[in-house]
């Protein structure tokens, strides 16, 4: 097991107070806090190595390039990709899904094709497909979700057919924390010749994820949810698929050659090698270096330990939340064997924003609203939800305090 008290010493922000109360940060599904190792790595880059990458022969640029490239290696190793060629740095999960939708979808999806998406997806795994479908005319089929928030696998299997070209599924729901069997979904998708895109935004930071074991064709995730800085994320893609794809953005870095032909009055362009073909312009070098440091931090702890700690906290929190406040309802399953450390809840008669503001008074940070997953809330027949989500630095004492404050909310 990991030691959250020892870990907390690495997180400067956890020492601060909010509204005169010790900060209790339970909005980790939205973004995580950053350890000083990550903050120091970013500062060290700017203080000692800052230069543009892949542009110059001088020492600083070489150092920056080396750090940036090794960051790709670090991430590849973390998720068991075959190599850095399969790791594209993007701004976050949203950009990663958009990259696939535009680069692959625009060129490969035709009128009679279908893309299968689940109803529990974050908007970032729905909206890009809806946008592209309006352009090329393909159909989107939505996988049903059961009343307890679990994925309806019968629906998934019945929707995937020879017409299906892509299946898009979150590994872990950002609303309920439910872990989906994406390996099973990938197997069905592949049987019909479709590709599988996994939204790993809520799984890669919290569970051991082996992309080869999942056999997903694409996995998208964000650095800021896994102790890294904002503005950096990852698209993993199988090399043979990325090789065949056209670039997403055009510009510097992603080309090897741009030559003007006097006769045709056009430029002929040769793309750069992977992963740079998909990283146009000056990349977020400091972000990549920060992410690599975050990955090292998580590897030191061990992802099995991260998972076990969150499972312990969730098991501890669920009965306490239910006992302390009779007006409280937990949305979705409470079976901790199939969910991560995310607990969506509501208090009868109060909006989720009231709940969050009440907790904020006591220094407790939880998310309120739709969490960018409106279809799932509609399915639950609720307008919004409050959401507590845990990470490596959260403790049972914080859960106790959270439950104590929830008890007081009954008076509202």
């Amino acid at each position, binding site marked *: 097991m990991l030691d959250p008290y020892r870990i907390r010493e690495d997180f400067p922000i956890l020492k601060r107070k909010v*509204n005169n109360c010790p900060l209790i940060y339970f909005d980790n599904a939205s973004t995580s806090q950053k350890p000083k190792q990550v903050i120091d790595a970013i500062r060290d880059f700017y203080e000692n190595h800052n230069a543009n990458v892949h542009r110059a022969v001088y020492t600083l640029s070489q150092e920056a390039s080396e750090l940036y490239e090794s960051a790709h290696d670090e991430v590849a190793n973390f998720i068991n990709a075959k190599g850095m060629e399969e790791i594209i740095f993007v701004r976050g999960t949203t950009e990663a899904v958009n990259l696939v939708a535009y680069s692959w979808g625009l060129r490969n999806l035709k009128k009679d094709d279908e893309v299968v998406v689940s109803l529990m997806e974050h908007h970032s795994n729905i909206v890009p497909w809806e946008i592209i479908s309006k352009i090329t005319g393909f159909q989107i089929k939505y996988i049903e979700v059961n009343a307890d928030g679990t994925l309806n696998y019968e629906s998934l299997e019945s929707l995937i057919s020879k017409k299906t070209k892509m299946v898009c599924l979150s590994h872990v729901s950002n609303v309920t924390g439910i872990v989906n069997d994406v390996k099973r979904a990938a197997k069905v998708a592949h049987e019909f010749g479709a590709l599988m895109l996994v939204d790993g935004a809520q799984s890669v930071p919290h569970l051991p994820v082996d992309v080869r074991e999942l056999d997903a064709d694409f996995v998208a995730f964000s650095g800021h949810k896994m102790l890294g800085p904002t503005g950096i994320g990852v698209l993993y893609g199988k090399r043979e698929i990325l090789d065949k794809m056209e670039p997403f953005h055009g510009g510097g870095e992603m080309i090897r050659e741009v030559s003007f032909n006097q006769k045709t009055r056009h430029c002929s362009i040769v793309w750069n090698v992977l992963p740079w073909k998909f990283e146009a312009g000056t990349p977020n070098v400091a972000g990549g270096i920060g992410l690599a440091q975050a990955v090292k931090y998580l590897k030191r702890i061990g992802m099995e330990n991260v998972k076990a700690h969150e499972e312990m906290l969730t098991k501890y929190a669920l009965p306490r939340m239910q006992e302390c406040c009779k007006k409280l309802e937990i949305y979705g399953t409470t079976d901790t064997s199939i969910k991560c450390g995310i607990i969506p809840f509501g208090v009868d008669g109060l909006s989720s924003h009231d709940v969050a503001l009440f907790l904020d008074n006591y220094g407790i940070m939880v998310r309120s609203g739709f969490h960018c997953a409106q279809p799932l809330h509609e399915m639950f027949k609720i307008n*919004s939800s409050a959401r507590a989500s845990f990470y490596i630095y959260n403790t049972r004492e914080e859960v106790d305090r959270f439950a104590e404050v929830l008890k007081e909310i009954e008076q509202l």
Partner: protein
Amino acid sequence: MVNVDDYVARIEGTCGKDKDVIVTFKYEKKDEAMKKILGKAMVKKSIAGIVFELVFRAFSFRLYGSGKAIFRDLKDRDELNVLLSDLLS
């Protein structure tokens, strides 16, 4: 006529069907703003002196000791501005 901007740091409308509007008062002005609001609105309920359920004219809203207020069922931002202006004057 009071300038609402002197007191308000941020107004945020929530997405979805709730249409709650959350007003965050400027940190250095929050105590003054709360005092004025509590002087104008009727207190329906108060919890530990940090959460107040208030009524002002036909509007119910909650005021939090952290310097935030949550309004709902407002027609638009203009209606909120008039309300805030009257509460803070």
